[in-house]
C-alpha cells in the first residue's frame, strides 16, 4: 500500500493539474485542487505542487481561487521564493472586476508569511480601503492589521492610523467594527484604540445596524469610555437599554458588563441591571446547549457571591436533570449551596439528598460535600441527613460523610457530639485514604467522646503493616498520641507498638521521622506533649468572616463576561500569572484548615528565627508588651472591628504568594492572634488579627493583598488611643511580615 500522500500521489496530482484537458473542465480541475487540499489537511507534504497550484488560481473559478489561497497561505512560509510567484497573480486579482475576487486576493496576500511581502502590500491595501465594495473594504481594513503585525517592531504609519480612524464613519457596519479591531491591534503598544466622546457617541448611534457579534464587541470597546457627566452616563445607559433585551446571550452579557462598569458609583443602577439580567441568565442556564448552560451557571455563581439572595426564589431551576453531564451537575450543586436560605433549605436538602445515592461516585460524593457545606449554617438538619446516609454502608458514601463530619467538627464545634455519636461502625466501610484520615483525625481529636475510639484505632495499629498510604500512618500517629493524652490507660500499649513499628520497620522516611519526633517529644514529659499537641479542637471563626462579607459588585464587574468566572478565581489567577506562578502551588490550595497540625513542623525553625529577629530589632519593646493567650471570638472581633475607626493605615511591600500557615505561626510567636485568614492562593487574600497589651488595649488588624506581587494593605484599629504603643505594634508587625515575606519568596 502506498503511503497517504506519498510520492506517487503527488506525482499523479501534478500530472492531473498540468493536463490541459483537466484544466479545460471546470469541475475536474476543481476536484484535483480539492484533492491537493485534502492531502495537505491530512498532513502530507504537498509543497512540490506549489507552481501548479499558483497556476490553478489564475483561472476564473472563484471556488478554486479560494482553495488555492488556502494552500498558498499554508505553504508560503516553507517556500518564500515561490510565494512571490503567487503575489503576482494576486496583485492582478486585486484589480479584478468582481469584488469577491478583489477581497479574496487582499486576504490571501496579507496572509502570506513571507519576509519582504510588505512592500507589495501597501499599494493594494490603500486602494482597498477606498474600494467601492464594502466587502473589499472589510478585508482591506483587517489587512492593515495583518500588515502591521508582519512588520513587527517598526514604527506605525501615522497616515494609516488616521485613515482607519476616518473609516470609523464608513457606511458599512462591519467595516466600522473591523476598523476598531484593526486599530486595537495596531495601537496595542499605546493602549489600543482611543474611544473619545465623538467616537463613543458615533458607535452608540450605529449600534442598531450591527449584528450580534459587532454589538458585543463594540460594547466591550465602550468599556474604556468614561462619560463626563452623570447626565451623559444616563443618556448612554438609555441608548443601550435595548441591548439588555437582545435575544443573543453574548450581547446581553456584554451590555450587562458595560452597565455594571459604567455605573460603578450607582449601586442602585447596578442592582437594577442584575435584576434585569436574571431572566436571560436563567434561560441560558436551562438552555439546550450544555456549554452555554455551563457558562451561564459560572456567571450565576459570580453574582451570588455579591447578592446571595438573588436567585433564591428560582432555586428549582438549579436542580439537576439526570441526563446532564457531570460538569453541569457539579456547578448546579455549588449554586444550590450558595443560594440556600430559610425558605428553601428543606427542598434543597431533599434534592441534594437524592443525589447522594447516585450511581456515579463522583457525583454522590459531591452531593455529600455540598450538604456538609450547607451544614455550616443549617447544622442539625444536615447532620441528620448525613448520619442517615451512613446506614447505607457504602464505601464511597461513608468516606465522604466522615470527611464532611471532620470539616464540620472543625468549623462548628456545637455539632461535635452528634458527629461522635454517628461514628461507631464507620471504620468497616472506609477503604480510601481520605476517608481513613478523616476518621482517624476525628477519633484522635474527639476520642474522649467516642467510647470505642481506642479499639478502632487499635485495629488500624494492628494492620499498619498492610496500610498503603503514608498519610494515613502519619494521621494515625498524631491521633494516637492525642488520644493517649486523653485516655492513657487504654492507649499506652498500642502507642508503644505503633512507635516501635514506625521507627524500626517503616520504610517511608516522612512517617519514620514523624514517629521519631513523637518519641522524643514523649521523652520530654507529658506536660510538654500537651503543650505542643493540645491546640484548639475547632476553629469556628475560620471562614465565618470571609463568608459573611459579601464581595461588592465592583470587585468583579470587570471580570464579568470574561473567561475568569468560567475558570474560577483560583485557577484564573494561575492561568493568567504566566510563568511566575509556581506550579506546585496548585496543590497547596487543598491544604486548608485541617492540615494545620501537620504543618507545624516545617515552621519550627521559623519561630526561633522570628523571635530572634524581633528581639534584635527591638531591644526595648518595653513600651509594649503583648500578652499571650488572649482569645477573642470571631463575633467579638467583628463587633469591636465595626465599632472602631482605623487608627493607622499602611502598606507593606510583598512579593510572591502567601503562606498562611507560616504567617500564622510567625504571628503567634509575637502573641498576635489570628482570627481568620483566607486560604492560600485566594485573591484578594485577607487576614484578621488581634492582640492585646498588658494595659488591656486591643489592636485589631486587617491584612489585605489584592493580587500577588502587589503591596499588602494593613489597617490597624486600636481600642484606646495610644500613639506610642501603636507605633511599636506596627513596627513589630512590620518586622514579622517582612521576615515571612522574605521566607516566602
Amino acid at each position: 500500500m502506498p503511503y497517504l500522500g506519498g510520492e506517487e500521489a503527488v506525482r499523479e496530482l501534478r500530472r492531473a493539474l498540468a493536463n490541459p484537458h483537466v484544466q479545460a473542465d471546470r469541475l475536474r480541475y476543481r476536484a484535483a485542487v480539492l484533492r491537493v487540499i485534502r492531502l495537505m489537511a491530512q498532513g502530507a507534504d504537498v509543497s512540490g505542487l506549489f507552481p501548479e497550484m499558483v497556476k490553478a488560481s489564475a483561472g476564473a473559478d472563484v471556488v478554486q481561487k479560494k482553495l488555492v489561497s488556502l494552500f498558498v497561505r499554508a505553504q508560503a512560509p516553507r517556500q518564500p521564493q515561490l510565494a512571490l510567484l503567487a503575489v503576482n497573480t494576486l496583485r492582478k486579482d486585486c484589480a479584478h472586476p468582481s469584488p469577491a475576487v478583489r477581497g479574496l486576493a487582499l486576504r490571501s496576500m496579507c496572509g502570506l508569511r513571507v519576509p519582504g511581502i510588505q512592500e507589495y502590500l501597501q499599494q493594494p491595501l490603500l486602494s482597498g480601503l477606498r474600494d467601492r465594495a464594502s466587502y473589499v473594504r472589510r478585508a482591506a481594513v483587517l489587512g492593515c492589521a495583518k500588515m502591521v503585525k508582519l512588520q513587527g517592531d517598526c514604527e506605525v504609519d501615522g497616515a494609516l492610523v488616521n485613515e482607519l480612524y476616518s473609516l470609523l464613519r464608513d457606511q458599512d457596519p462591519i467595516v466600522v467594527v473591523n476598523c476598531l479591531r484593526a486599530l486595537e491591534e495596531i495601537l496595542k503598544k499605546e493602549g489600543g484604540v482611543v474611544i473619545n466622546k465623538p467616537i463613543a457617541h458615533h458607535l452608540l448611534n450605529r449600534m442598531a445596524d450591527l449584528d450580534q457579534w459587532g454589538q458585543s464587541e463594540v460594547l466591550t470597546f465602550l468599556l474604556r469610555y468614561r462619560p463626563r457627566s452623570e447626565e451623559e452616563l444616563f443618556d448612554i445607559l438609555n441608548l443601550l437599554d435595548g441591548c439588555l433585551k437582545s435575544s443573543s446571550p453574548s450581547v446581553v452579557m456584554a451590555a450587562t458588563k458595560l452597565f455594571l462598569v459604567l455605573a460603578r458609583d450607582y449601586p442602585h443602577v447596578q442592582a437594577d441591571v442584575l435584576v434585569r439580567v436574571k431572566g436571560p441568565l436563567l434561560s441560558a442556564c436551562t438552555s439546550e446547549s450544555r456549554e452555554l448552560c455551563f457558562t451561564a451557571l459560572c456567571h450565576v455563581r459570580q453574582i451570588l457571591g455579591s447578592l446571595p439572595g438573588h436567585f433564591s426564589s428560582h432555586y428549582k431551576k438549579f436542580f439537576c436533570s439526570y441526563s446532564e453531564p457531570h460538569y453541569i451537575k457539579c456547578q448546579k450543586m455549588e449554586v444550590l449551596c450558595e443560594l440556600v436560605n430559610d425558605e428553601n433549605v428543606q427542598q434543597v436538602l431533599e434534592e441534594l439528598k437524592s443525589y447522594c445515592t447516585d450511581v456515579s461516585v463522583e457525583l454522590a460524593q459531591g452531593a455529600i460535600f455540598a450538604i456538609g457545606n450547607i451544614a455550616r449554617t443549617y447544622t442539625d438538619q444536615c447532620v441528620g441527613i448525613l448520619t442517615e446516609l451512613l446506614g447505607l454502608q457504602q464505601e464511597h458514601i461513608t468516606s465522604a460523610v466522615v470527611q464532611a463530619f471532620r470539616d464540620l467538627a472543625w468549623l462548628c464545634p456545637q455539632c461535635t457530639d452528634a458527629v461522635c455519636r454517628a461514628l461507631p461502625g464507620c471504620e468497616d466501610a472506609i477503604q480510601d485514604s481520605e476517608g481513613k484520615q478523616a476518621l482517624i483525625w476525628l477519633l484522635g481529636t474527639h476520642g474522649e467522646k467516642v467510647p470505642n475510639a481506642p479499639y478502632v484505632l487499635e485495629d488500624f495499629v494492628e494492620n499498619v503493616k498492610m496500610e498503603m498510604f503514608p498519610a494515613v500512618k502519619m494521621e494515625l500517629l498524631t491521633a494516637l498520641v492525642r488520644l493517649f493524652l486523653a485516655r492513657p490507660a487504654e492507649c499506652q500499649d498500642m502507642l508503644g507498638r505503633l512507635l516501635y513499628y514506625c521507627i524500626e520497620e517503616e520504610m517511608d522516611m516522612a512517617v519514620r521521622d514523624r514517629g521519631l519526633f513523637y518519641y522524643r517529644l514523649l521523652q520530654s514529659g507529658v506536660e510538654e506533649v500537651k503543650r505542643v499537641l493540645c491546640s484548639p479542637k475547632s476553629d469556628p471563626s475560620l471562614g465565618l468572616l470571609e463568608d459573611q462579607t459579601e464581595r461588592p459588585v465592583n470587585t468583579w464587574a470587570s471580570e464579568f463576561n470574561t473567561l475568569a468566572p468560567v475558570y474560577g478565581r483560583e485557577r484564573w489567577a494561575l492561568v493568567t500569572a504566566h510563568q511566575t506562578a509556581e506550579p506546585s502551588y496548585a496543590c497547596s490550595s487543598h491544604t486548608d484548615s485541617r492540615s494545620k497540625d501537620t504543618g507545624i513542623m516545617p515552621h519550627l525553625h521559623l519561630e526561633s528565627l522570628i523571635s530572634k529577629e524581633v528581639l534584635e530589632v527591638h531591644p526595648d519593646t518595653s513600651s509594649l508588651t503583648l500578652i499571650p493567650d488572649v482569645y477573642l471570638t470571631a463575633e467579638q472581633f467583628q463587633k469591636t472591628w465595626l465599632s472602631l475607626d482605623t487608627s493607622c493605615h499602611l502598606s507593606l511591600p510583598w512579593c510572591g504568594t502567601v503562606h498562611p500557615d507560616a504567617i500564622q505561626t510567625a504571628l503567634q510567636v509575637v502573641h498576635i492572634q489570628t482570627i481568620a485568614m483566607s486560604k492560600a492562593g485566594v485573591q484578594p487574600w485577607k487576614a484578621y488579627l488581634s492582640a492585646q497589651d498588658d494595659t488591656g488595649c486591643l489592636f485589631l488588624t486587617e491584612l489585605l493583598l489584592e493580587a500577588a506581587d502587589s503591596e499588602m494593605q494593613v489597617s490597624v484599629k486600636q481600642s484606646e488611643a495610644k500613639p506610642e504603643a501603636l507605633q511599636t505594634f506596627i513596627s513589630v508587625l512590620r518586622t514579622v511580615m517582612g521576615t515571612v515575606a522574605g521566607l516566602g519568596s
Partner: protein
Amino acid sequence: MLSQIFILSSKGDRLIHKDCTLARDGRHFAHVRHSGLYFVATAATTASPFALVEFLNRLVTLLRDFCGPLSEKSVGANFGLIYELLEEMVDHGYVQTTSPEVLRNLVHAEPVATKPFSLLDLGSIGLFGAETQQSKVAPSSADRPVLLPPGEQPPRNEVFVDVLERLTVVVAANGVPMKVDVQGEIRLKSYLPAGVEMLIGLTEEFCVGKSELRGYGPGVRVDDCSFHSSVKLDQFETGRILRVTPSQGEVTLMQYQVADDVPSPLPFRLFPTVEQDPGGRLRLYLKLRCDLPPKSQALNVRLQLPVPKGVTSLAQELSSPEQAAELQPGSRCLSWDIPRCQGGSQLSALFKLEVPGPGRPSLLELGPATLSFELPSHSCSGLGVRFVRLRGVPGTPPRWVRYLTHSDSYVLRL
C-alpha cells in the same frame, strides 16, 4: 478573538482545521459538542465566553443548513464547502458575518449529500427519530441541506413549523409533582426563496405572565417568552400572530418557559410496591400509568431504576411481549423498555431481584426512577399553531406543523 477553529471527530481526529491569525496567541480552548463531533475554537485571554459558545453553536447551525445533517462522514465529504464557509465567516480571527443569506451569496461550493447510516427507511422518521404516524407526517426532505448555491432551485418549496418542548419533572414519593418545567420553542425551517412573508397564528388563549387573562377557560399560559429579532409582533397582541419574513434555513422564532403551572396532567405516573423476602430477595411491582389523552401515545419509553449494589440477577414478568427489561451491571441499574404506550393505558411489571450475601439490602439505594420518552404530536403547554399563511409566493407550497415533546429529565422518587 479566535485564533484557530477545529472540527474534531468523536475520537479526537482532526477533520477541519483553520488558523485564523498569523500568531497563535490563543491559549484558551472552548468547545461545543454536536452530533458526536467537537467544534473547537482557541481564543485569547480577553475573549468573552458567551460569544465563543454562541459562535460555535451558530457555526453548527450554519453547517447543518449548508451541508445537511452533520456526521464525521458529511463533514469529510463537504470539506471544501466548510473551508469556504469558514473563510467567509471569520477573517483574521474576527467574525465577519453569520447571516445565512449573505453567506449564501459568497459561498459557491456545492454540498455533497451523504446518506446517513440507518437501516430504517427515513421516510417515516421525524425529529429525534420519533415515528410519527399522524396525519401531519413530515417528509424526510426536512433533512436535506437548506441552502443551495444560487442558480440551483431546491426541488420543492416547503415550510416546517415545529413546536418542540422539553419536559423537566420531579415527582415526589407521594405522587405530588415537585417541579414541572417546560422549555419550549417554535422552530421554523424554510426552503422558500427569501422575501416571502409568513404569518403564524398561535392559540388565541396564549397568555404571557401570571396575570394576563385571555378568552374563557384556562388558556395556555407561559411564564416567559422571547422572540427572534426578525419576528414582527404588531399583530401579536390582537391576534397572537407572528409575522416573519424568514431567510432560508433554520431559525428559532420563539422560546418560552412554563414552570409549575402546566395545564395538562403529567404524562406518566408510577405506582411502585416494594417487598422484601426473608431470604433477601426484593420483589418490585411497578405500575406505570400513561395519562395522555387516549388518542396520543408515547414512544421509546425507557424507565431506569437504580437498584441496590449487591443485586446479581433479575427475574421479570412484563405485561406485554414487546416490552423488555434488563439489569445493567455496569451502572447497577434496571431498565425497562416500552416501545409504545397508548394514552390512558396502564402497564405493569414484576421484578424479582436476587441479593446474595449477608445483611438486608438497603431500600434507600432503590430509586429514584427516571423516565425518558417522546410524545409526538403533543405539546405539554397546550400551545398550538392555528395557521401558517404565506404571502408573496405563487401557489400554495406545503406547510408542515409538527409537535414534539420529549423528556429532558423525568424523575419519579420512590
